[in-house]
């Protein structure tokens, strides 16, 4: 009965294919039409966050750049005024650049940030055709705002946003 042996094996195999085709969920995605949701702790391209009123969380302290093991971040800061306010407090980042070719997505910048301004987001679709494109500037990293009047710089009421680092209710961690 050696003749039937391959046929049996073949149909077993085809049966498995048929079974999985009919009863199993597909694990592959039709990328890029369909995009897979990333895990909660996924570390993708950075974003610079804003407060609810649109002010930037980043205060230009450069601690992310200090923590960066790949020296991928360059920050320069300037002074805020109530007429032209970018972020709460005295200081804001006037230049913020990340060289994505250098970045190793370790997330140390996130850890170092005293205001939770920089977080590693979900975006993993990074491709460049030249080196200059790999440098993400502040405009590219900042989250979009919900309304036009929330763009920075804002003209704000004097002496309201005087503190750079938000007061933490329960500074346990």
């Amino acid at each position, binding site marked *: 009965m050696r003749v039937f042996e391959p046929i049996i094996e073949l149909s077993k195999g085809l049966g498995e294919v048929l079974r999985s085709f009919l009863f199993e969920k597909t694990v592959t995605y039709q990328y890029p039409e369909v995009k897979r949701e990333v895990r909660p702790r996924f570390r993708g391209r950075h974003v610079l966050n804003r407060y609810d009123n649109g002010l930037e969380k980043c205060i230009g*302290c450069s601690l992310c750049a200090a923590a960066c093991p790949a020296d991928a971040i360059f920050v320069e800061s300037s002074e805020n005024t109530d007429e032209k306010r970018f972020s709460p407090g005295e200081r804001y980042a006037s230049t913020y650049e990340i060289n994505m070719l250098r970045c190793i997505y370790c997330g140390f910048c996130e850890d170092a940030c005293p205001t939770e301004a920089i977080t590693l987001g979900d975006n993993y679709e990074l491709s460049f055709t030249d080196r200059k494109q790999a440098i993400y500037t502040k405009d590219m990293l900042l989250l979009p705002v919900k309304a036009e009047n929330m763009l920075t710089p804002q003209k704000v009421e004097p002496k309201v946003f005087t503190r750079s680092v938000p007061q933490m209710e329960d500074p346990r961690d």
Partner: protein
Amino acid sequence: MTTKQVNVTINGKTVSVPAGITVVEAAKMHGIDIPVFCHHPKLEPVGMCRMCLVEIGAPMVDPKTKEVVMENGAPKIAMRPKLETACTNRVFDGMVVETQTQKAMLGQKSTVEFLLTSHPLDCPVCDKGGECPLQNLTMAHGPGKSRFIYDEKIRLDKQVPLGELIYLDRERCIQCARCVRFQEDIASEPVLGFDERGRKMQIVSLSEPGFDSIFSGNTTDICPVGALTTADFRFGARPWELSAESSICTQCPVGCNTTLNTRREAKAGGDIVVKRVMPRQNEEVNEIWLCDKGRFAYHYAESKERLTKPMIRKDGKLSRASWDAATKLAAEKFTKNKKDFVVLASGRLSNEDLFNLKSLADTVGGKAILYSDMGGGDVTKLVGVGAGTNIGKLGKEDAIVVIASDLYEEAPIWWLRVKQAAQRGATLIVANPRGTKLDKFAKHVIRYEHGDEVKTVNDLGKKNKIADEFAKAKNAIIFYGSDGLGVNGTSALASACGSLLKETGHVGRANNGLIGVWQRANDQGAFEMGFEAEADLEKALKGKAVYIAGADPVGDDPNLAKALKGAKFVAVQDLLETATTEIADAVFPAQAFTEREGTFTSGERRVQRFYAAVPVKGDSKPDFAITSMIAKQMGVILEGSSVRVVFDLLSNSIEAFADLNYDKLAETKEQFPIVGRSDMYYGGTTYENVKGLGVQLLPMAQVGGTVRIPKVRKEAALHPKEKEVLAVPINKLYDFGITVSSAELLEQRIGETKISMNSSTAKKLGVDVGKNAKISFDGVSGEAIVNIDDSVSAGVVLVPRSMGLAIREPVVAKVK
């Protein structure tokens, strides 16, 4: 200072230290760090912060026998019951200090905890963050948690401008009073003070304008927190992002050692630029201080008006040219006009630049003129201060004479150190026709009429009380300047001073001799190279082929502009576009001192090296290289690629430099106080000197050569007619000069042109105080605000140099 030594046991280690110093200093000398905030080695101890708490013990003495109680063959130690401050306790023989016991450490820990109860902890946005003693000591000695209630923190407005140069953040202040004490004790400008008390105690400025001191920047160095920060560096960068390179301040002849902090800047198109200037320790020059001019007026090297390409005049217009074409043109013209060749260079250039320029002039047979209103360099070469001079060591039994100079305006750090010497007991004699800020520290103030400078000096050599004190002084230094004088006047004055010093035997030794308060950083160097100041520049330039380096005679003086317009050929090498480059036939872009290396000679004849800190701008070249390129086209071979080689050649041919070499200038030795290491809480953020203390040149009198003071004939005195006045030049710290005015921050301090006269002169002339008056003299006319200074002699008007009115020497003027 006493040299008596005592034995002290610190943490079980017995060490020998000089008697009378504090426990903190004794520990520091032997590598044991006691944390401090309010203590500073340059200030008197106050014991305000309580950070340095230690256990102190002394050998027990039997009250009956008055003998030391012995125990097991060693003196029995009685520890004092309470912790004591190591900064106020002075060492005595047999003292026992414990800094690391549980009790001491708990005391230190509690102090930090207390200090932090009212500190905002906004380190991320604080300019001091990263070089902050409070940060460091909190990490080392502080508690991880605070037991105090967060809501009880003092909340105040964030920054308060304390004047336009310095910002104050009162929340961050830990009330150590270092700034207040610096202003009172060291700068003697008590413009800061405390207001309120307890937790509300805060620093306030007591002056108008705010923080009116020319040493204000130093308080930001010694502030142990971020309470005082400079407006110039505000949010400029984080300290750890900066690179440091050693340099020399180019603003005045003191030659303060500086460190240039550099970083890439987006605004500058990604170029590396100087972010701030910090003092670098040199106890014999500037100690650990720097004046505000040196700290804030460095921006000119980064000006947008920098020349970047060589240019030559074609069809009446300046157009870009290659280095080859431009140098060829200059060389051709200079060769053609060999007999009329003149080099006009300023003391902004380094020794090497000036050496090459002088060599070229000598080979061609031309004249080398120093662009300065002050002469007398030939005298300072002979009887300049001896090697080993340290004004910081002068005191009782010593004498200092300051004549025809307002040191406060001309050389602030000399003012500071001379003033301190006087406070230590040195006899200070200030001679000036008008009142200066140094007067109140002087033992003798001599007022003389303009034109009587030489007579005043000669009087010091005669028999009178002041002259006796001067003659008997163990050491004596004379500072002479160009306050109210031109080239002729200063040359005569220098000769008179030189003769006086020689006669009284105050030459050829350390701490003795003559110091010229020159107008630019390296004027002394120019004199060493053989340059000479020229009284009648107009005549010297007219109809000549002029090679100008680092000077702007056209912009400075309309008379010189006229003279240069009649010149056969003008080649200019400079940093910036000036009025002189506009009329030039060939323009060469030179490199700034921040972009290259070289050496300067200070007024105390100390040769010091500066180093390249930032990349070269455009197509510019160092001055000595430009000269060598032109020389090559003329058939003269000069070194043009290595500063070191030029220096070697220079030391071979200039006698005073014979013992020097480039490496010797970079040598350092241990200095006290120890600063600039990881323990910034001790001396502040001043940089440690690792790149050279420089070497002082030996004056002819010290080498043992013949000292023949040149005789200078005194000029006939000017006699203003009725309705005329005598206009005399004075020097201002902040002026319109290109090296100062490029700093926007200093605009307010530069102010407007003001001429000073006494009230009777103003009345006689019929001019209104505080209003504009027209002044005209010698082909120059302009307007200036009338200022009243009653210490000025009648019939005399003081006209500041480099403030829009071209005045080089005393002249007869008309004021309306």
